């Protein structure tokens, strides 16, 4: 059994951290093979960012597959960029308001730590034009996760990526939820133990959203 994931968004959203967290959790808590491949480019905040994670029972040949089982799209731009890379029957987790009418506007908060110059990019970063993305399209399922709002309500938009991580784990059977949480504590908590509580909340709310979407 081999499962592949693309995590995609904008530099500064913690895209690569999600890929590394999933990979680390798979490495540390299962016997599976795992590869992680990030996009790399000129070091730049606000640019596009993506990574590939493959988790398999056998040695992995292609760490950057053309088609993946899961796409975590942190914004609409990422969705549009990678919707052609989702397998038929695959699942897309889209950072978007569950209620299509509701718009998410937390751009200002997303700018934290990104510097003044990032203002123009940031509007694209968190703009979740939910209305134009159908629920199920092009042979794959779309799970809307109101990650930006959830994270904002928790007090840090940076936790958006953990909400998305939770949604993937809650929805899929990739790994036991507890394994990933332990890795989050270990990797993120090492530098910022004071963030553990919020990280756990963000992850748990994502888990619930993911589990709710299982039909």
């Amino acid at each position: 059994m081999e499962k592949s994931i693309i995590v995609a968004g904008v530099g500064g959203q913690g895209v690569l951290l999600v890929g590394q967290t999933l990979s680390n959790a798979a490495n540390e808590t299962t016997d599976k093979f795992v590869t992680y491949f990030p996009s790399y480019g000129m070091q730049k905040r606000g640019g596009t960012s993506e990574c590939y994670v493959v988790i398999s029972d056998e040695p992995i040949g292609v760490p950057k597959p053309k088609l993946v089982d899961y796409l975590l799209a942190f914004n609409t731009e990422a969705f549009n960029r990678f919707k052609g890379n989702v397998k038929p029957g695959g699942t897309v987790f889209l950072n978007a308001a569950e209620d299509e009418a509701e718009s998410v506007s937390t751009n200002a908060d997303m700018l934290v730590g990104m510097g003044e110059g990032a203002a123009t990019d940031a509007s694209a970063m968190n703009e979740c034009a939910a209305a134009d993305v159908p629920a199920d399209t092009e042979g794959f399922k779309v799970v809307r996760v109101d990650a930006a709002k959830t994270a904002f309500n928790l007090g840090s938009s940076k936790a958006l990526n953990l909400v998305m991580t939770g949604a993937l784990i809650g929805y899929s059977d990739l790994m036991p939820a507890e394994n990933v949480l332990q890795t989050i504590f270990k990797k993120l908590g090492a530098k910022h133990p004071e963030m553990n509580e919020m990280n756990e909340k963000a992850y748990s709310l994502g888990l619930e959203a993911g589990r709710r979407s299982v039909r």
Partner: protein
Amino acid sequence: MEKIFVKGCEAVAEAAVRAGCRFFAGYPITPQNEVPEYLARKLPQVGGIFVQAESEIASISMVFGAAAGGTRSMTSSASTGVSLMSEGISALAGAHLPAVICNFQRSGPGISNIQPSQQDYNQATKAHGHGAFRMLVLAPSTLQEAADMTYRAFDLADKYLNPVYLLLDGFTGAMMEPIVFPDPKSDEWILENKASKAGWALFDGNLREERRRAMGGRNDQEPDNIASAEMYERWKGTEVEYEETLTDDAELIITAYGISARFAGAAVKKLREEGLKVGLIRPVKVYPFPEEAFDKLDYTRVRGILSVEMSIPANFAEDVKYAACRRAPVKTCLSSGGNILELDAILDAARELYGSR
């Protein structure tokens, strides 16, 4: 044994430290910056020296200076930067100094872009500088191999008193994978290793008449060239290294090295599932090239050879054609310019070649 989830660049850097590398000089260039960044933290902790040099030319010259003193030394760069090192690599080979050079290949020619490629194959295996010297060229295809080969490269450099070249790529440098690191050499071992070079290395006022004045230019160069050529020839008996997968009954051979071999291996697996008799030849070292792997094939059965690499024009395929010696058609499946190979493209090319007899 604990598997550590590690980035390719860091796998190489940590393995070098464990192999007893105590000097590194390099210049920033994507996609290998994590190598110097890792060693800038790590080397001072183990009594080693890290220098960010003013250029790749200075980097390789510093490696020359450190190696001349018997210290296990390494530099790392990517394509453009490695071109600048040609002068110093040739100098290392000419002076018979051991050192390890890593190339995390990126797109070319020229500055091009920073995405992965395998476009430096000919440069690495045939023409890494003026003067017709050769180097052992190791081409890892997994991160475990990248670490193991880096570790081994220092032994090979010491054994042959010649630079050893690790032919990597931006993909391998950037990706992460769990690996088990080889055991670190002890401080005592490292001191003994340096002391064992007293016959030629310059340290502690270790004046050696036979070595002194022999470090650089020679007027009687030819005898030295003949001795080197004999060593390169011996490598063809002792240093050839390759891996064969399902070649015994294969009617189609896919061949690739480094990161491409991963993709090629996945293609072989998929095609076998389809019932096609396909096998893989993967040179582990690309110099010396494993011609014997192609000599061993039963050409009454093999319909063709598909050579896969991330280079346009093809480089590796030229060695494959030479080794196959017109005994079977050699076709290529290529990408370049920073584009990563796609499994489907390999599968399509393989199916076409398989069915085209």
